[in-house]
């Protein structure tokens, strides 16, 4: 008898709990990580989930979605989901739907593939040999991606935070000597990408590296600062 009397209250309690949970999830925001192959999308995603840099690499063949331990942006706003799309060319068409859905967009670019050797690539850190024609192909690919993203963003009513994150700065010894001067020196190269993506009013820029946990945390902190600035 007691059970039957208590049951409606228990059901009501459960329903209110579910409603509260749904309300809370409404303030959770999502980030979308895009970029060409080998830009560090999976590495950043896994870092956000595990706070660890994975050393074992796989070329992602499918999109990856992870629930995050709520990352607070401001009062009542938290990042709760992160999605990393695949970087191969056959995947670009599937980006549109996710660009529309996400709140914050991060496009990762590998600096070692767009900055020439004049800034001194540290061969001990960057063993990969990149011929000039491959570098040019990479640059064209990135410019074309940014153009596509810009087009997708233009049609949207709700404005999104769009960040260009330049990864692999650790491949340049100069980066560790004087970060500020390093940024000044590559500004001209970066500008070309900012313009392609829609200009400095829309795009925020971050330079950093995912070489280890310390560098990754600094990189992610700078991204968060830019997101907060944009809000």
């Amino acid at each position, binding site marked *: 008898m007691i059970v*039957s009397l208590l049951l409606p209250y228990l059901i009501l309690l459960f329903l209110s709990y579910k409603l509260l949970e749904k309300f809370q999830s409404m303030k959770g925001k999502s980030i979308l990580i895009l970029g060409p192959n080998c830009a560090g999308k999976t590495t950043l995603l896994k870092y956000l989930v595990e706070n660890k840099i994975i050393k074992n690499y796989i070329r992602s063949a*499918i*999109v990856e*979605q992870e629930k995050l331990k709520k990352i607070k942006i401001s009062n009542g706003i938290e990042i709760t989901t992160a999605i990393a799309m695949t970087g191969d060319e056959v995947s670009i068409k599937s980006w549109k739907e996710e660009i529309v859905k996400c709140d914050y967009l991060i496009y990762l670019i590998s600096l070692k593939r767009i900055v020439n050797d004049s800034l001194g690539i540290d061969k001990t850190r960057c063993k990969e040999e990149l011929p000039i024609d491959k570098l040019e192909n990479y640059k064209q690919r990135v410019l074309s991606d940014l153009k596509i993203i810009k087009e997708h963003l233009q049609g949207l009513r709700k404005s999104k935070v769009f960040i260009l994150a330049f990864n692999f700065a650790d491949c340049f010894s100069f980066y560790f000597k004087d970060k500020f001067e390093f940024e000044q020196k590559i500004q001209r190269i970066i500008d070309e990408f900012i313009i392609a993506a829609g200009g400095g009013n829309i795009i925020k820029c971050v330079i950093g590296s995912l070489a280890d946990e310390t560098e990754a945390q600094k990189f992610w902190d700078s991204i968060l600062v830019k997101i907060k600035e944009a809000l």
Partner: protein
Amino acid sequence: MKILIVKAEGLNSDINSFHFFDKGKYVDLTAEREKAESLNNEINKFVLKAKKEYESLSFLSLYRLGSKFLLNIPVQEKDSMGRTTSIVFLFKLERNSIEEINKILDNLQEYSKKCKRTIAKETIDEISKILNSLILKKRGKRLDLGTSFAVTVLSGAVSYFIMNKKFLSIILSIGAGAICYGILKVLKNKK
């Protein structure tokens, strides 16, 4: 059992190093690039909707949505950057039988050969283990649901017979069914 889509990740940025199969039919990327793009889109949509059932340290993963499954299998071929590549299978199970699983394993090897990719023997064994345990789990879940339903009906009938109150009997029987399902679930987790 039906293999719906097969995608072998490219070994370099060249589009021709990718391989796609649509319901068993090879998709020629130079002539049917849009088709390959839509198949890729379908795979991504599936992953975003589905539940990740399994992921190993060797990057083998399994996603499930209803009777459809997606396996992301690491292969022995590396890309130009030295990273492990993978082959993706989207398939549908119809009868959830051991024979069906064996048929899938044969298909995985057959398609990987067609895509010039090699799945390690240990990976095949791992896939067989995961699929078998998943089917057993599914069967177990059905059994639990069946038992709980029987308890619901029985307790409803008995309580109505004793109290002769319809609403109360319904509430009681639902409660009994839920408790029964909960107990069965806890017992299974303990095992």
